[in-house]
């Protein structure tokens, strides 16, 4: 993953200085009819079984993903999107969708890195055609603030204080195990009214939105639409360091390695 990110940074740099990057990298196809048609073919082979022929999240295998509980496959036609870099309630950027298709969602959606980069862009163009809001809204990524400060005992302690002040323990539990009183009471529901459980923060490999410090800061800023996880953007704006400290504290809760 780090390799990929480095690759993307590199490609952005190459584009920025105006070199002929097209010879090196797959080009993101234009969002035209032909692209969507190519995307449809891929969608019907790879995505339909969970997300359904009309993108309603009701594919023939979709019910089994969470059975009687959340999550169920995303309904592309009317729901919001969980995994974004944009503000609460906004649509995701193309890059957000690309990240989800490429990484998958731990536990629930496999990585489709087996599709070529062009194929992934094509299927994204098709997925966006399910929701007309993609034509009227222009999602913009939130700024995640400056570079990540290095983790230190002080920064982790500050992060822990923020965890308590933001009452993360209400859902995620005082030890971060996802066993907070609101979650245990069964009060948490997703947008479809299905029971949803708070994430066990001691198991970073199961984090749906990724487990790097950048991923955690993004989740704190954007929230996970369709779930009870709110955006803390308004509380963290201008105090970006606090977001990093909180992320560092969250990662300090697990003994396992993380990417």
């Amino acid at each position: 993953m780090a390799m990929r990110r480095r690759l993307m940074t590199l490609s952005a740099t190459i584009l920025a200085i105006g070199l002929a990057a097209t010879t090196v990298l797959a080009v993101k196809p234009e969002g035209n009819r032909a692209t969507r048609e190519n995307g449809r073919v891929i969608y019907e082979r790879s995505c339909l079984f969970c997300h359904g022929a009309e993108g309603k999240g009701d594919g023939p295998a979709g019910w089994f993903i969470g059975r009687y509980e959340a999550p169920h496959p995303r309904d592309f036609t009317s729901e919001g999107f969980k995994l974004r870099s944009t503000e609460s309630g906004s649509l995701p950027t193309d890059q957000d969708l690309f990240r989800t298709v490429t990484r998958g969602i731990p536990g629930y959606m496999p990585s489709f890195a087996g599709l070529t980069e062009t194929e992934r862009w094509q299927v994204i163009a098709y997925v966006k055609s399910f929701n007309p809001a993609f034509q009227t809204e222009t999602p913009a990524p939130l700024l995640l603030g400056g570079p990540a400060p290095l983790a230190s005992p002080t920064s982790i302690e500050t992060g822990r204080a923020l965890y308590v002040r933001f009452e993360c323990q209400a859902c995620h539990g005082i030890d971060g195990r996802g066993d907070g009183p609101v979650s245990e009471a069964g009060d948490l529901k997703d947008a479809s009214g299905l029971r949803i459980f708070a994430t066990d923060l001691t198991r970073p490999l199961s984090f749906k939105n990724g487990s790097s410090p950048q991923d955690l800061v993004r989740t704190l800023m954007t929230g996970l639409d369709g779930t009870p996880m709110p955006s803390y953007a308004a509380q963290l704006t201008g105090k970006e360091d606090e977001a990093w400290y909180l992320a560092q504290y969250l990662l300090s809760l697990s003994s396992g390695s993380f990417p």
Partner: protein
Amino acid sequence: MSQRSITLGILMAVAATIASAFVHPEAQAIPPFARKYNVNCTACHTAPPILNPFGQRFLENGYQLPGTEDGGIIGKKKLGDVTLDDVTNFVGFRMVGNVTRSWSFKQQNPPGAAAGVVQNKTEFTFPDAFTMFTAGTLTKNVGFMVELGHDVEGGTTAVERGFVTFNNIGYHDLAHVRVGRYDPSAFYSYVTIRQQLNDVVESTTSGCTPFTPCGLNRAGLAPSAFAAKFYGLYQRDGTAISPFASSLFNSGGETGVDIHGRPFGDWFLYQVGVLNGANEGFGDSNKGKDIYAMLRFDYAKSNNFSANISGFVYRGYSNAKVQSQDDVNWNRYGLSARATYKMVDIYAAFAVDKIDKTPTAVAGLFDSTATGLTIGADTYVTNKTLISLRYDNLDAGGMLDQRKSATFVGLQVKQFLRTNIAIFARNDFNVRKSEGSDTAARNLRNAFFSGVDIVF
């Protein structure tokens, strides 16, 4: 159901409830493909080992995600070697079996017992079957599967299946080839090796001699549609073929070559294959190859609904012998269908077995036609409780003085303690009137099982 069975059943249910109360609902442990792709079992299975449509396409595509040819993506480390870290992405184990069994018979051939006496027998056992399988992709469009099964009671270990797949030959989904020892019915609507109610093998008298009827103590409990169905049929080496054993197209493992694909889009799947043929002794060159063809129609679009129907023709050439040691051509024609809507999964299979020409030595003594019908249903009543039902009717063929038709109904409750650990309680009962010792195939009145199913 005997009093003892009922008591055991209640105990199981209580144990399940108590045990499940201590398990965190998010607990997830995952077998090899799930590990490789970092998803739960539910991505591919309705209820393991039964596949949902996504899992079926994954299987069809040679263990590659549907629509992709991603077989190579985990082998690209360093020099393309697979390291020890990857082993868990390839190897899985399943331990399944009964820990208690309780039988209720009308006389189970005990010496000196009066005809018609009802007997109960309860035994504690070790989980019967331990399976180790390794499967995955070697590189893009090349996959493999090896499954070793150890039967704890019988003390035998054997390669149940072991084959290589070559996928997407020509263009995507045109042709996928399997070579080796595989289950021909892998793409059938009702797959032999994917069932909730595991086969319970029959009990036979020991010391059977070739080409003589092998005495049966108790009937086997296995899907009738897949069974051999004939009494008095022998392998070419003279071993008696169990009328309950899954066989021919529905065998759990046969050696041959098989091609399948979906060249006409998603609606149809074709499958053709050639097998050494059931029951051939090694190096028996007098025998012709068996051939089969299957066509399947799928409807799987939206509304959490899918349905499919499939039919096959299996032609055997000298693939069995009768008592007189004459070769016969044993064929099967089958039809199967399945429909899944949310938590409900219903499937059925019907098969007609026909022996081409009855050898003159057994003419008039041998019924050359037999049929089997199996209907099954699984449903999740809660996120952790799966109820399965199976009905079997065997209209047996073969030697008229031996054959016995049978009808059984089985009901199983499976409680998942974790996504990969389940305990179950099951009861099968004889729908027909149970009979005494001379009809061992029908002497079983009721059978109760409780056990575990662990996959990791």
